[in-house]
């Protein structure tokens, strides 16, 4: 048996109100490729952030043993010194700088006051060759495609003398061909003795490259599967580990379900990326939602769900739209304007409540009224007593825990912030609510309350579209489920026909077909 290079023992990491990791154990042997799989939010990235020192020693419990020594990293530099290098899912390259400059950013050749550009570019070229890139290191990063940028990231990691390379979803923005090339590159590195950890959602990739597979679910390690048996590990086997959890009473029952006519319909909806207009982010999507219906849209991160919702919501995302939007059976020519969308009784409750949803420096009252302030104002003057009453009403209705509605939203817990966000959009009195990850980052109790609110909305005849990357949530809440992958609708199921396994299988099939 080979030497154990890295051992993470009983790692526990808590964020205010949430236990992100609970006694996680991970063993990586020298020279192997170890895959880390799990649903979004299972804790994979958190674990890697602990390993690389982004969460410094002391902010978590447990031990990291690397090369036989207990490590106490206080920042990324410390872990990189030992050869632990992480490549994040989102590319961390400066587009305006050259490949060489990027590779040695923060790690400059020469002295601090006189960068040795000759060495920089010579060494950069050497590492670029190792990853199979023909480009000169003097080329600006923005001029090469994402596939090549990912390779530059790897070259950058190699330049740091990496011994343990961590790749967080390295192929999420790559096409099939580039992905395969990258995986082969990894296998090549393995032959040269490099140890790697790969985090990925694409289970076919796992089966292809990994020696061992560790499954993480809800912040704990479930199992480690050996991929060296006589037969390769089946994807079904991995999926079972990823999703197999108990599902008793996590969702409130729906009562008096009355589903009416089609409220909103999109046909052949296509949206392009705002920065790379040739890329389709939403690709020929057609869907509808009825009155009083909860429709779930499931897909992994980057499947184009948020982009679909935001493009429907007054084209607040994307460029070069095509397709048709019908509301109440009538085609709607919507301008590129959120105001217009609100007028058409659409609300979009963002997944990013702190970034796109709430004004943290303002009170609950101010946030609640913002999307529909005109209903409280005459001639531009706000009726503040009425505003207060409205904020109170929604606090009551949604059971937001706060001493007063004058409380700053920034001081509330995640679950209560989410309720304020919901209150804001309920007050806008929409008929169609697009809820994007309505329970992200909040604890189980608050989730249940949010589910009750969603059910009440449907009962009141609203059309609810619930986007989620939590399968059990989609299964537990929806009347009908759409499955999205890589910008396309790849399936539609009635709730009673849907199971975790057949939804996952659909996604994996479509991923392979692409």
């Amino acid at each position, binding site marked *: 048996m080979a030497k154990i290079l890295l051992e993470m023992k009983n790692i526990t990491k808590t964020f205010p109100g949430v236990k992100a990791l609970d006694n996680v154990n991970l063993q990586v042997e020298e020279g192997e490729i170890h895959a880390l799989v799990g649903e979004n939010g299972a804790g994979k990235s958190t674990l890697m952030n602990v390993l690389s020192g982004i969460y410094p020693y002391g902010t978590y419990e447990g031990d990291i043993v690397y090369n036989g020594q207990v490590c106490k990293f206080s920042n990324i530099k410390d872990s990189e010194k030992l050869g632990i290098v992480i490549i994040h899912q989102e590319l961390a390259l400066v587009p305006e700088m050259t490949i060489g400059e990027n590779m040695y950013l923060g790690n400059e050749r020469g002295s601090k006051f006189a960068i040795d550009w000759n060495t920089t570019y010579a060494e950069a070229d050497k590492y670029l060759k190792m990853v199979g890139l023909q480009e000169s290191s003097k080329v600006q990063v923005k001029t090469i495609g994402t596939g090549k940028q990912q390779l530059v990231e790897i070259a950058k990691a190699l330049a740091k003398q990496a011994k343990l390379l961590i790749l967080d979803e390295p192929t999420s923005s790559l096409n099939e061909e580039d992905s395969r090339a990258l995986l082969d590159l990894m296998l090549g590195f393995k032959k040269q003795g490099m140890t790697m950890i790969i985090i990925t959602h694409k289970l076919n990739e796992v089966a292809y490259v990994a020696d061992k597979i560790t499954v993480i679910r809800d912040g704990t390690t479930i199992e480690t599967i050996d991929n060296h048996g006589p037969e390769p590990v089946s994807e079904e086997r991995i999926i079972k580990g990823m999703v197999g959890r108990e599902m008793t009473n996590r969702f409130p029952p729906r009562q008096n379900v009355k589903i009416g006519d089609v409220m909103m319909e999109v046909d052949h909806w296509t949206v392009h990326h705002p920065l790379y207009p040739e890329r389709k982010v939403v690709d020929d999507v057609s869907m509808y939602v009825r009155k009083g219906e909860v429709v779930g849209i499931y897909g992994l991160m980057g499947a184009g769900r948020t982009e679909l919702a935001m493009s429907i919501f007054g084209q607040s995302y994307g460029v070069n739209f095509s397709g048709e939007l019908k509301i109440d059976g009538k085609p709607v020519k919507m301008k590129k304007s959120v105001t217009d969308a609100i007028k058409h009784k659409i609300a979009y409750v963002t997944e990013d409540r702190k970034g796109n949803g709430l004004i943290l420096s303002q009170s609950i009252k101010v946030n609640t009224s913002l999307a529909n302030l005109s209903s409280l104002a005459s001639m531009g003057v706000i009726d503040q007593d009425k505003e207060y009453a409205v904020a109170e009403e929604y606090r009551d209705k949604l059971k937001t825990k706060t*001493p007063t509605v004058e409380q700053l939203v920034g001081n509330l817990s995640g679950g209560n912030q989410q309720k304020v966000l919901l209150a804001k959009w309920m007050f806008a009195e929409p008929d169609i609510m697009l809820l994007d990850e309505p329970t992200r980052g909040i604890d189980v109790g608050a989730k249940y309350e949010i589910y009750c609110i969603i059910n009440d909305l449907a009962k009141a005849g609203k059309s609810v579209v619930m986007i989620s990357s939590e399968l059990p949530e989609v299964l537990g809440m929806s009347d009908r489920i759409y499955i999205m992958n890589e910008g396309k609708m790849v399936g539609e199921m009635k709730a009673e026909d849907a199971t975790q396994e057949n939804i996952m299988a659909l996604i994996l099939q479509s991923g392979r077909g692409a």
Partner: protein
Amino acid sequence: MTMSERKISVGAFFQKYTMVIALVVVVVFFAIATGGGSLKPGSINNLISQNGYVFVLAAGMLCCILTGGNIDLSVGSVVCFTASIGCVMMDRGANMWLAVLAMLAIGLAIGVFQGFWIAKIRVPAFIATLSGMYAFRGLSNVVLQGYRVDISDEKFLFLFGGGRDCYIPDYIRQWTGAEGKPNLTCLAIGIIAIVIYVLMTIRKIHVQKKLNLHQSILGQVITTAAISAVVFFVTWQMASFRGLPTVLVWIALVLGIYQYITTKTAMGRHLYAVGGNEKATALSGVKTRNVYWFAYASIGLMAGLAGILTAARAKGIDPTYGEGYEMDAIASCFIGGASAYGGTGKVSGMIIGAVLMGVINQGMNMVGVDSNLQRVVKGLVLLAAVIFDVMSKRQKR
């Protein structure tokens, strides 16, 4: 439990009222240093008349800063430019009201013009207004052809606070025929203002009680009493001097309007919202560009008014007037607790900031501090205020 709660509330008290406390300390310090001279009627009168433009410009500037720490560097030049045009017009015999209207209209037009680039074309505010700062300074010189132009229109000077007799006449004594001092009209206005203020506070407390808001009633009573006392003291001093300076009417009008806009109107709410989180505001259906446009148009109009006040005070204009005015306005807002990142800041804070700067200026002049040192002190006060803002934010997170 109660101990720690009290500790928090004491800390919160100091945090909330730091600048008020600083102002009191500074006022007391200079009162002692000048042997009471800084609290004499003449000094208070000067403080208001000299700083009229600061209040007016800072009110407009606050709106810009609220939208996200954006500032308007051009106001000093715009003040000079509008004043130049007005003075030249009056010099050539134009009607005074026509000149006033022209100054306000030109100020507003400049604000709309700069706001267009900032809001619609997304030129960074700093750069758009920096170019305005150069351009309108140059244009002022062109209009004035390099020379000073004087104002002889007595009515203009009286209305906008220039010359010897720019005080509201004592109508009450004229009517009753009684001679002497104090100025009864001035006193009456002061007392009416205090009564209105007290009534408003009572109504506010009443509403809070009805809505079950847990606000400290004692705190509000103390605040109201303190402000009323200050207002009464200032009115009394002015009444025993020459009465209410007319410029105070304009200051009060501007501050009142801006207080109303920022606290009661939808546009005011949008100013705070854009500064607090522009993306979230845009996704709530607010047309954020119009909010920026409003802020810059409004400060343009205020620059026009400040131009009128400056010209009246100096009884004319010369091409260097207004230099550094933008900095006084910006400093007042930041000292008054406006966040350099936008989203927070109040008119009341800005007033305290402006008064604090004015008191320090005047106090140092009376004590005879070297004018270069005065700038050093002003700079340090601004730095201290902003450090405080940044630190108190960090504590929270």
